[in-house]
């Protein structure tokens, strides 16, 4: 091998002119003279097991036939097995792995919301008219008298009611017992939230129409509470979108909403949380999200090694018709994910200490051919309006918003607002309600294609929460606790127990489960299996295939050379043609013996196959012992250059 490598640098400059170098050294490429010779060489030197017997045992027809059948059988078996193996590989099977890891964990981001979007006092001006009309409606429909002022002015202001579009109406339902044959007010009625209400013959709802009032439908509800809330919410959205100014931020959040905050027994500071405003859930504070300078880590499980918050949950300044829940809402989510308070929140009861224990679970899917998931969302045909990490929720919400803008021409207020688009308001877009509810229906029945467009992310982390409750503060300690809170945080609430809540969030265990996929057939195992099959049936290898390829190349080359020679001998002048043929013939003839054969003429002339091979390989030892005696030179170099001086 080493001796051969010494020759490597030499062929470099040579390939340009192979014929001149022939007389000195062995040529770059040389071809056999005849097919017979070529086959002889192949048969002698091939490593394919069956093929040798098939091609080379020409003396016995019976044997040849037998070997041919055998060869075909094994060939068939092998390719059948190959087909099975490839079929298995290209179905991209995955195997599920569950890893139980136990290590320090990054504490997830925790978002806490006040459940009160605006201070009622600040919003009163905007909501005044809506509230009055709502009260009026409540009085009209249910004879409910919420405030004394209303009664006095009710009659006088009746005409004002028409100033708001989509009034709440009581709708008679003609044939309630048969839900299927129920006659709807409009054939385009989409939602029917009243499956079986036999007791009452009417429902309550409001009408929504399209641009030119040609198509209308009623959104109906069986419960008056739902109807009023939904109707109020609908108008509230319009009012909100009219408020162009950014919502008032409560700068002193840590003092006003969050009385105390500790993580790992250490007090939090302003750098640990960020603030955003949600139109329904109010001021939300996200602890430990990505712009926290150094992320909180949990090295130990347990209550003492988690986040502990004392929250103010008083509801003296809530919007009465919008907020029907009191307390606070908390959500645990990944660092770079937006908090969808609607989707995965946890409500905290006032006057309670809520201990939420988490356990982490991660899912890793294989992307690409193995499954339908997306690594970072860049290949999903939906624009990410949130500007955060891709999650399926982000994508679906973005998809809805994009469709909303396309269909209705305005943006829904609960989803992010792209540049240059304004939020929906019926003063500007008078039919957006119609459009929105239609779209909502199409969205939930997946006619928008959002659920197919939005693929699962390949890496997902979920936190499983479970909660325990205890009364806080206890009877014996409530005196000093409330006193301290009121002194430190200017906390003055009449009903004290309902005004505060305590929250502990901690890891239950540091063990976390990772469900990951891995290809069950990898390239390596596929190749191994192929090789096993190949060896079993054929005993050959990739190099054998290269041998066959070489054989085919040689065949082609020889055919070409022969054709060329014949062509030359036919069409050229005999003198020239003869010389050309001689040249072609002499090239291999002179080089062939240079390696093996001491008699230059013998390989071309001798036809007996075995004899040739004997002659080919036998002489060198004798030759080698002869060679050095003629040229006594350096002892070691002689071995590598043994051939060179030997050229006759």
């Amino acid at each position, binding site marked *: 091998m080493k001796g051969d490598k010494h020759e490597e640098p030499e062929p470099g400059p040579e390939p340009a002119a192979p014929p001149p170098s022939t007389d000195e050294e062995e040529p770059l490429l040389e071809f056999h003279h005849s097919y017979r010779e070529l086959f002889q060489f192949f048969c002698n030197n091939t490593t394919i097991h069956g093929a040798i017997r098939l091609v080379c045992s020409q003396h016995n027809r019976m044997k040849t036939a037998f070997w041919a059948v055998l060869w075909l059988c094994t060939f068939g078996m092998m390719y059948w097995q190959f087909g099975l193996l490839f079929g298995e590989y290209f179905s991209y099977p995955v195997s599920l792995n569950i890893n139980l890891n136990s290590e320090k964990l990054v504490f997830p981001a925790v978002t806490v919301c006040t459940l009160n979007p605006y201070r009622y006092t600040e919003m009163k001006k905007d909501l005044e008219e809506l509230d009055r009309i709502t009260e009026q409606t409540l009085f009209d429909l249910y004879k409910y008298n919420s405030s004394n002022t209303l009664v006095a002015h009710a009659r006088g202001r009746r005409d004002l009611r028409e100033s708001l579009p989509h009034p709440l109406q009581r709708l008679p339902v003609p044939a309630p017992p048969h839900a299927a044959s129920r006659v709807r007010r409009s054939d385009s009625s989409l939602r029917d939230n009243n499956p079986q209400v036999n007791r009452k013959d009417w429902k309550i709802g409001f009408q929504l129409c399209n641009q030119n009032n040609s198509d209308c439908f009623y959104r109906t509800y069986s419960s008056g509470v739902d109807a009023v809330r939904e109707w109020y919410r609908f108008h509230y959205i319009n009012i909100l979108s009219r408020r162009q100014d950014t919502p008032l931020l409560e700068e002193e959040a840590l003092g006003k909403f969050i009385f*105390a905050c500790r993580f790992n027994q250490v007090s939090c500071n302003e750098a640990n949380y960020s603030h955003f405003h949600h139109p329904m859930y109010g001021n939300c504070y996200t602890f430990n999200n990505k712009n926290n300078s150094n992320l909180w880590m949990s090295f130990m499980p347990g209550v003492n090694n988690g986040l502990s918050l004392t929250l103010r949950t008083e509801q003296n300044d809530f919007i009465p018709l919008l907020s029907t829940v009191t307390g606070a809402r908390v959500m645990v989510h990944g660092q770079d994910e937006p908090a969808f308070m609607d989707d995965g929140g946890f409500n905290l009861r006032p006057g*309670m200490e809520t201990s939420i224990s988490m356990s982490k679970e991660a899912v890793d899917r294989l992307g690409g051919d193995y499954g339908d998931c997306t690594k970072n969302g860049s290949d999903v045909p939906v624009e990410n309006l949130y500007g955060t990490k891709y999650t399926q929720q982000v994508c679906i919400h973005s998809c809805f918003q994009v469709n909303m803008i396309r269909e209705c021409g305005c943006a829904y207020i609960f989803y992010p607002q792209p540049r240059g688009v304004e939020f929906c308001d019926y003063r500007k877009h008078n039919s957006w309600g119609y459009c929105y509810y239609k779209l909502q229906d199409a969205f939930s029945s997946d006619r928008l294609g959002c659920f197919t467009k939005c693929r699962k992310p390949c890496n997902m982390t979920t936190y499983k929460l*479970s909660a325990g409750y205890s009364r806080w*503060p206890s*009877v014996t300690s409530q005196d000093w606790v409330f006193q301290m809170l009121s002194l430190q945080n200017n906390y003055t609430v009449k009903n004290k127990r309902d005004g505060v809540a305590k929250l502990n969030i901690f890891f239950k265990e540091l063990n976390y489960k990772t469900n990951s996929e891995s290809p069950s057939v990898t390239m*390596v195992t596929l190749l191994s299996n192929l090789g*096993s099959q190949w060896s079993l049936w054929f005993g050959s290898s990739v190099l054998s295939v290269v041998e066959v390829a070489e054989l085919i190349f040689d065949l082609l080359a020889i055919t070409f050379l022969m054709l060329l020679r014949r062509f030359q001998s036919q069409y050229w002048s005999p003198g020239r043609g003869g010389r050309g043929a001689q040249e072609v013939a002499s090239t291999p003839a002179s080089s062939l013996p240079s390696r093996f054969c001491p008699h230059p003429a013998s390989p071309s002339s001798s036809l007996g196959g*075995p004899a040739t091979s004997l002659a080919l390989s036998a002489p060198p030892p004798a030759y080698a*012992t002869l060679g050095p005696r003629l040229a006594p030179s350096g002892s070691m170099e002689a071995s590598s250059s043994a051939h060179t001086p030997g050229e006759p």
Partner: protein
Amino acid sequence: MAAGEKIKAKIKKNLPVRGPQAPTIKELMRWYCLNTNTHGCRRIVVSRGRLRRLLWILFTLTAVALIFWQCALLISSFYTVSVSIKVHFQKLDFPAVTICNINPYRYSAVRDLLAELEQETRGSLKTLFGFSEITSRKRREAESWSSARKGTGSKFLNLIPLLAFDKGETSKARDFRTGRKRKVSGRIIHTASDVVHVYESKGLVGFQLCSNDTSSCAVYTFTSGVNAIREWYKLHYMNIMAQVSLEKKINMSYSAEELLVTCFFDGESCDARNFTRFHHPMYGNCYTFNNRQNETILSTSMGGSEYGLQVILYLNEEEYNPFLVSSTGAKVIVHRQYEYPFIEDVGTEIETAMATSIGMHLTESFKLSEPYSRCTEDWNGVLITNIYNATYSLQICLHSCFQAKMVEKCGCAQFSQPLPQGANYCNYRQHPNWMYCYYELHQAFVWGELGCQSVCKEACSFKEWTLTTSLAQWPSEVSEKWLLSVLTWDQGQIKKKLNKTDLAKLLIFYKDLNQRSIVESPANSIEMLLSNIGGQLGLWMSCSIVCIIEIIEVFFIDSLSIVARHQWHKAKEWWARRQASPCPEAPPSPQGQDNLGLNMDDDLPTFTSALCLPPAPAAQVPGTPPPRYNTLRLERTFSRQLTGTEVPAES
């Protein structure tokens, strides 16, 4: 001796030790390539044309490289596990359930011990926040306490003073006891400067802890006064309780009869005897159900709330320690039998005047230990002594590790964990500055600086109960009256009428009797690995173990012996020349040199030179053939090999 020689000669004759297959390395390679079964090598030799040969060399080397690469991949992925999930449906063992009252000791019983502390806490509350008692009864009590304690002075505040920090200046602090400003030297921990300007109206509250020689101090500040008072109180509380004997503490805490009003399990009545007591330093007496020594583990016959454990707990809210615990309720933890319940870390709290239903779902996990993952079955291989009388778990290991470090660094043991051998609980009489030491150590521990997290391994098998809690108002308005009176009668211990806020109902049950087992098993076996490696070898080169042995023989043994022989002859020749130079007999050496030069097999000349030397080693003789014979042998090897190649061609 003669017999030995004879045998030696016989062996030599019958089993002649020949040298390698060829006299030189080049010949050896040639011989190998022509005769090996490995594909590719033969082509290197028999191909004609340099480019062709070069290509074959390249092909062969590529195949070798591929084999190495793929086999490396196979071996590196050998230690992977496959996971199987089984769902059994069977009669399940009910887990051990530990129930604690959040409040450790009856306040009336423990008040004597804590009187001074309470007095000073109230005092500092007054000076700190101008806080005065609201309830008249409380105030009366407080006054009586204060009058009683007037003369003694405040020893707790002397020890660790509570400080208020004015905004903006963290180095100066106001001492609440004396009212004068004092300079706070040393580091200030946990004071975030940006917190300070958040609070326009108030300063921070904290306390200062110093090491033994008071050279290094740390100030602990809290944004909320509630937390500051509680931490400060807890420190002193631990000091006091560390000096109380265990029996006394058990007596001060709740008895099983007192805590458990009713008990039902699997449709049958049970009572306090089914519970075993275990004393927790921070939660007092806790009672564990279904954890009795030498008794069979109870199991449930059915899923559902009817067949689980139902208890009504009496949590006397009036006996709560006002400063130590601020919430009311009980703590429940579900764990394996003989496993230590870490009630302070992982407990589900239940509320008074509520019925809490906890549905369980059992998941068992079994991991493979070394070398698949770093987990352990028991304490073997963990360099920590177990201070808990319980089976191994990661939590126990971490706590044991911390306690060991605590004893090592601070000289005493922390109060809320069991005592290691030969150590005492910390109290400020014996260890005046243990608190500083503890805080520093705990901080280091929480941030993983003590190395406990790396020493402790996770357990290989664990059971996990996934809990789902739901709440309902209990007792209902209509049933409240009769229920409470019956329960009062049941609970003979207490001579007062039960209040519904003193009671809590707890139901723990299996949601269904399905048990999920996650079992890891090795994904690869040695047979799989071998067959895969065999597949790779076969695919690229049609190689086998035999051809690997061949390679070892040719490339290592034979090549080395050729090189060694060559060197040996060289050395001998050199020695011969040295011997020859003083002696006038020069002719043999040029002859040998001539021979050496004209032939590449070194045997010939060196053998002659060796012959001329009297001390020719006998051992070398069989290895070195006679000079003339060598050329013959060379021919013979080739002719033999030649006939070998001929055979397939002819047949």
